[in-house]
């Protein structure tokens, strides 16, 4: 399942990040978006193009088109 399709406030775990942009993928890894990391969608913007997610101890806003490259599963 993709992070972009996750329901709000459901605990998930990242399985893989399938981005081709290596610089961006590395940045995601560094801020806590790595396989086996726990993640939860907290809010979605009005035009549904930006997600607010909790990962590790922090909250990040990321674009939905980026979330489409993040594979997750519910825990």
């Amino acid at each position, binding site marked *: 399942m993709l992070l972009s399709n996750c329901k709000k406030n459901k605990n998930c775990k990242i399985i893989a990040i399938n981005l081709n942009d290596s610089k961006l993928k590395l940045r995601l*890894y560094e801020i806590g978006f790595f396989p086996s990391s726990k993640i939860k969608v907290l809010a979605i*913007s009005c*035009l*549904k193009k930006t997600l607010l997610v909790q990962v590790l101890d922090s909250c990040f*806003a*990321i674009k939905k088109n*980026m979330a489409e490259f993040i594979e997750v599963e519910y825990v």
Partner: protein
Amino acid sequence: MCKVYIVGNPNSGKTTLFNSLTKSDEHVGNWHGVTVDKKSKIIKFKNQEKEYEIIDLPGIYSLNAFSYEENISVDEIKTNKDAKILYLIDANNFKRSLLLALDLLLQNKNIKILINNYKYFQKNGGNIDVDYLKKILGCDIEIVDARKVKINQEFFNFTTRETAFIKTLKNEIDENGEKNQECLDKYEKIEILYKYILKISNNCTKTANKIYGYSKYDNTILKLSVFLPVFILTMFLIIYTTFFLIGPKISEMFVYLLQIFFQKPVMAILNLATKSKFVLALFEEGIFGACFSVLGFLPQICLMYLFLSILENSGIISRMAFLLDDLLQKIGLNGKIVYTMLMGFGCSTSASLTAKNMADKNSQIKASLLTPFMSCSAKLPIYTMIATAICGVNSIWLIFGLYILGIVVAIILATIFEKTILPSKNSQFVIEFPPLKYPTIFNVWLSMKSSCKQFIVKVFGIIFGISILLWILTNVNIKFEYVGDSSKSILYSFSSIISWIFKPIGLDNPNIICALLIGLVAKELILSSFAISNKVANLELLSTSLTVASSAVYFNFATGVSFLVFTLLYFPCVSNFGVLVKEVGLKYTMFGVSLQLISAYMISYLIYTLITKGVVQALILLVIILLIILSVKIIYQKIKSKKMFCNCSTCNKCK
């Protein structure tokens, strides 16, 4: 001299710590990307010879830079291998912060870990076993409040030793590298580091029971239908309070005190000391009139900065960026520009510097070029003075309209840039949410203090000096004789030569043109210029004189509005020019300046025509302007496509 870097994730309190250690007042805010350049100061303890150069660096998440300002930090750390590092961790972001700490330890850097915001973490049920961490990591660790760190020389006497834990970590990374017969994949390295971080965290921390960066209020705030009207109302209330409710009353009192304690005593002494009309007029009009006409607005500027500091320190800017990013993407911008534009309401020069936190060059250039269209605090005195003179009690709508007009013009230009010369390069939007906080009096005071200090320094520096020069040029003729009449002065003569350019927009009064030319140096000088031309020595008289037809400078409604619109949009000031040249290069800066002048002229012309000749004429003019813009776009596209394919068979593009 010992170099000491302050390193840490964005918004962990590094600049606050820097201010605390060095007794500075560098700008702080509750936003990831406030510090975009390194700052340093040298400190020395009493009776000690050794000096310490404390260097505040932009926040980084790792030793792999993602944006321009992160490159600054990474280059510094990698270049100065012997420097000491004060690594600041926000206790609420403990796990992620440890990634860079471990990376620095693996590189054998000498670091001391300072844990900040611990009280907030404890209040929410969190806990960190510092002694365990010290044993594991082999470095000094202290819990601090970055706002009030008391230091002595011992603070900087720290060394890091390699512990068994770090050795194990190094071995695992090296072994995995050998297995792959090349350097370990960067992603695998991070996964290994986080594996160890989670082990450490399980052993020595108790997680807080609240999500850091998300509160119950966010359920309501993070809805555009709620946020946008509230934000527009807030901006309106800020403008109303600054310009009408509290601001003018404090300004009146302040100017009265300045006159009682400075102007009247000094003029009384001068009247006794000399009978020279030149000297008396220079002091009365050139110094007191010109400088006090600007300084009188200090209370209102303080109020404006107070409100901006509250917004900046509350954490609301990240929420704005999140909500507006979807809409901004349609015009080729992203949510991060919200901070730059908001800072533009304070000072467009410092706002242009914050554009460095954009991830790609085109976005940085766009942000820098659009910032001057925001109504900065230097334009505030001009708006107040002229809008009040021409509109009276209804001036609030005119002033609010000017703020909105600046934003609308910026949006239109951003759309044009996106479709032509500066298309966005699929910029990715990743921002961290700071917690919503009640801004502390200390942080708000610090932000306000540094901004107001800059204003006062500007008044007593450049404005003071240029006002004297301006007064001389406005009272001396081409033979350098004192004439005391601006209509016979050097500046008036020059302005008369070019007045035909400004006739269509109703600003062909040479004294108004003088003011606009002087305003190229600093916007505050426009009021000084009016005060000198109208020979008035206080704000009240200046305001009254601006609507009297016999004054050297006067406005009716049409010319007043045209002037305000022109001032809003044309070239901001020389310091902004200097910053733009440094940040985006001379080519884009000159392009930006041309755009500002053209848009100022066209929009002033449109509005002046609307007021003086009616809607029909204005609509015809608008159609002509749109056709000109369309033609420029078509010509640009033809030139661009011609450059791509010149239909020859010899160049590389056509082969």
